[in-house]
């Protein structure tokens, strides 16, 4: 059983960006944790017990109590381990960070998925929507080095994964997602963020992720043919 005493356990999946952003939060906070890999699509009894509502990873178990939903988990981590704060102190800046994380999850990510999984006109429209929404997201940088300012914060780890997945997705699906001319500042930020040692060392092996992405794409394309 996970969650022995005061311990922290993370149930995740190696190719999941949502598990990844929780890993980043734990890494920044220097929290020792036990990582347990779920062998999706099979779901372990432990996962089903700890997240009966959604039956999804990531799940964080702390002192025997489970939590689900990656951004909820990240805010919890930020509140329990107070050093290296992720969210800013000021309520208005916290609101902005939460607003933009929500924007990315609700406006950028679904568009990216549609651009990856559709074909023809639908794909073209989705890709355009993604590029435009990334442009909007870029405005939240406000000329800073990172969304968090001089150092990375909540919003950086909430959206940074998109830079990695979008590049892979656009290669496999054959549609432009990251347009460096359209989003010069965000492109630079994606690069800088993903090169940070603390961030880079948690990324899934890129060749394995590319294979995984190709397999997933093949599956989706076959589904559209039936």
């Amino acid at each position, binding site marked *: 059983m996970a969650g022995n005493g005061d311990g922290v356990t993370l149930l995740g999946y190696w190719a999941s960006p949502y598990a990844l952003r929780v890993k980043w939060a734990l890494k920044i906070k220097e929290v020792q944790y036990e990582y347990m890999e779920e062998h999706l699509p099979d779901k372990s009894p432990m996962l089903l017990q700890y997240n009966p509502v959604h039956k999804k990873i990531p799940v964080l178990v702390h002192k025997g109590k489970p939590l689900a939903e990656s951004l*909820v988990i990240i805010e919890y981590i930020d509140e329990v381990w107070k050093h290296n704060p992720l969210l800013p102190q000021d309520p*208005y800046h916290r609101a902005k960070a939460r607003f933009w994380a929500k924007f990315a999850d609700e406006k950028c990510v679904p568009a990216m998925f549609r651009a990856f999984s559709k074909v023809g006109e639908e794909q073209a429209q989705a890709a355009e929507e993604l590029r435009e929404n990334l442009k909007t997201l870029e405005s939240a940088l406000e000329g800073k080095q990172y969304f968090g300012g001089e150092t990375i914060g909540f919003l950086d780890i909430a959206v940074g994964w998109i830079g990695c997945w979008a590049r892979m997705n656009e290669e496999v699906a054959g549609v432009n997602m990251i347009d460096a001319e359209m989003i010069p500042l965000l492109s630079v930020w994606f690069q800088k963020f993903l090169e940070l040692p603390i961030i880079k060392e948690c990324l899934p092996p890129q060749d394995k992720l590319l294979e995984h992405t190709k397999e997933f794409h093949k599956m989706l394309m076959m589904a559209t043919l039936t």
Partner: protein
Amino acid sequence: MASGSVADQEGKVMLLGFWFSPFVKRVEWALKFKGVEYDYVEQELTNKSTLLLTSNPIHKKVPVLIHNGNPIAESLVIMEYIDETWKQNPILPQDPYERAMARFWANFIEQKVTEPARDALLSQGEQQEKKVKELKEAMEVVEGEAKAKLNDKTLFFGGENGVGYVDIVLGWTCNWMETVEEVGGFKVLDPESQPQFHKWMANFREVPFIKPTLEPTEKLVEYFRMLRQARLGLVANK
């Protein structure tokens, strides 16, 4: 979000809203719970004011809270802002784990109850059936939570503190769900299979700062019927 370009009287709180919006109502409930004075500014759905467009250029939607000239959008984000800015009568639990669970349930309500309900209101046929099914399944989960958390002593999800974050996020159901059902032409509410939820709704409606804010169902039905017809009319004409 643009900042500093709108009403910047020190400490002034302004809320841009629509009278019929459950998202706006949530924010009002949060402000009233805290006893925060605010100016409510009614917006027009089709003729959006400059103030709305400059304070929420990304989504161009209500609610928008403007405090010290700073605009904040998205009802759940606004509620957290309110809770962090005005410390009296906390809305979210103090304990980090309980806070996280409250946020978890708020997300569940938004994704599995609120959004499908809105989609069901504005769709028909197979698409609507799919959303109604989702909604019914979600209500089973809500009833389960109500059974687990509520009793004769604990009337609300906020626990011993009374009304809390989850109650306010779910609260729209007690005034709008019947409207959505009537206008959309489907049934989701069922006192027999959802006894605890119905008890919670009845108690929520009676909360002194909530009761006077509830809109008459006939008024909501009339307005939402118009919205549904406008949406379906547009879809038919494509």
